[in-house]
């Protein structure tokens, strides 16, 4: 990078921030100078205009456009080809199957692990350090996590010293080194482990907060009844945090459906590891198959749909109570 490049970048940053500040200033000026007639509507419009405008061009219009693109062939005519491709080609079917495996394994395992860990460290000495260690992967990018784990799975041919931890263990226990990321189907599981590694911290922090919200009297009452730790966990803790459990499961499920970076970084979807979100990128932006990419995006939308509808309903009920 030359000094000129750096100056150009700083200039962009300063200009960008200045233009934005000027626009917001103008907006506030207009809000305060709104005409007396219909003043309330005018002000409401100005407060909402930037957000609504951006959402309209960046999310609402594109959602309709992508849906339309999914039903067009390369010549621009209506066709079902893109969906036929998705549900008949072995490679595309494998992508769908992998996505299902991801969404079955990641939310359940990371929630279970996060819950177990939260219970184990609850009120223990050094709880904050324990939490920070498992929570830390949440701050790391999926790309960074991909590199970290690729190093763990690194392969050197038999006879050479292994520098990847997993193969070093395999050799230490008398096995042969394995090209983990190229071996179907275990490679998909190994990628899933990376996602679990990241999401467990999220589940743990949320569930730990929920556990602390359970009234101590309930636990003490159960203790007086002579229950053991497992019974208390099953009959007091789990029912007490049911709401948070559902939230954690749904949030991780949505994140998992859209997982892209891990697969992209670690295998680029090769060796039968692709998932919908990665295949969408490959088709639309690498292979110029915009129709197929759009069809995959639509499927992703349909998979996320029920989860978000559930959350919208919860939200509507909450607002009715208010």
């Amino acid at each position, binding site marked *: 990078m030359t000094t000129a490049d750096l100056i150009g970048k700083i200039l962009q940053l300063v200009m960008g921030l200045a233009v934005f500040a000027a626009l917001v200033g103008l907006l506030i000026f207009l809000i305060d100078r709104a005409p007396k007639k219909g003043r*309330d509507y005018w002000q409401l419009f100005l407060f909402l205009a930037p957000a609504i405008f951006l959402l309209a*061009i960046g999310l609402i219009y594109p959602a309709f456009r992508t849906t339309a693109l999914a039903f067009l062939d390369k010549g621009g005519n209506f066709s079902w080809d893109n969906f036929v491709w998705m549900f008949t080609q072995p490679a595309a079917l494998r992508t769908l199957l992998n996505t299902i495996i991801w969404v079955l394994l990641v939310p359940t395992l990371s929630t279970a692990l996060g819950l177990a860990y939260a219970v184990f460290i609850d009120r223990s000495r050094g709880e904050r350090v324990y939490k920070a260690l498992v929570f830390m992967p949440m701050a790391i990018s999926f790309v960074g996590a991909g590199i970290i784990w690729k190093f763990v799975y690194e392969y050197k041919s038999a006879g050479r010293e292994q520098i990847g*931890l997993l193969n070093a263990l395999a050799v230490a226990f008398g096995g042969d080194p394995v090209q983990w990321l190229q071996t179907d189907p275990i490679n998909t599981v190994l990628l899933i482990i990376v996602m679990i590694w990241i999401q467990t911290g999220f589940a743990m922090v949320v569930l730990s907060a929920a556990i602390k919200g359970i009234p101590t009297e309930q636990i003490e009452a159960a203790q007086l009844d002579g229950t053991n730790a497992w019974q208390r966990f099953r009959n007091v803790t789990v029912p007490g945090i049911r709401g948070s459990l559902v939230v954690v499961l749904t949030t991780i499920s949505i994140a998992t459906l859209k997982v892209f970076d891990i697969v992209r970084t670690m295998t680029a979807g090769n060796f039968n590891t692709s998932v919908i979100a990665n295949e969408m990128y490959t088709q639309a932006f690498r292979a110029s198959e915009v129709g197929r990419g759009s069809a995959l995006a639509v499927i992703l939308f349909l998979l996320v749909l029920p989860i978000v509808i559930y959350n919208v309903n919860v939200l509507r009920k909450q607002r009715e109570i208010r």
Partner: protein
Amino acid sequence: MSSSVAPADLPVENGEGELELAAREAGTKTHRVKKRLTSRGATVAALVIAVLWTIPTFGIFISSFRPAELILSTGWWTIFQNPGFTLDNYRDVLLSPSQSSPQLGAYFVNSLFIAIPSTIFPLAIASLAAYAFAWMRFRFVNALFIFVFALQIVPLQMALVPLLQIFSQWLKPGQQWLHSVVDIIPVQNYLPIWIAHTIFALPLAIFLLHNFISEIPNDVIEAARVDGATHGQIFFRIVLPLAVPAIASVAIFQFLWVWNDLLVALIFSGGTQDAAPLTQRLAEMVGSRGQEWQRLTAGAFVSLLVPLIVFFSLQRYFVRGLLAGSTKG
């Protein structure tokens, strides 16, 4: 950021969690005796999980300071048998002007200059909208608010192709013009990626800030209104200062999300040193130089540095934002 969909409220307390801490302290004392008897197994299990979770990151951290020949020939856990320490890996990936080195310095600057505006822009726009949704009474506002929340239904993947088309049609001429006027600014500048991140952040940011802003006591807003304050004044003098803790925690999330993003960068940054962020460069390096572990480990740690600093220094706000986005389901 985009993945969190749960309805929630931001915590209002300003006491920085001191109360919780005190409560936990008391809990520790009452329960210590009973706990000690039953939880030996649990402690061991927790310890095992904590170690398992930390080892991968630790391995890459150690390796990034080892000379290339040692990284490639010996496991990092043999560091005591095969000692060696160097800063060459970092010098190489960050500063070396050689064409064959990754030149991460430029990408680091890009990541920073993408993340700062991409945090400020959506938060400013979202707080304006959140104020309107919370304190301007109109019949359709409620429905509109739920609609905005529901927009999280649209996965990023659905927005990419059309948005890219819109940008190349409407934004590209402007970028070209800017380059012809100020030629130090490349044609492929940060503008598309700023706008894309701003748009994608809005639904959740509006939602979280709204929940907080609507918790401000009605009396405060009413009193200001009786004194003749305009909406603009109420927003700037009363709502914004009170909402600082909420804005801070949403800002941390947005910053980390943008810093860690790969997908949006791949589509909208152009992929060159002009505007592409660290994540994109690293992903590229994994693809083309997957065996150069001295560079990959150092590069990965460069990209982890900022998030880890943010995480360890602002952990409390980070956790608060997370809980705001997920509990009270």
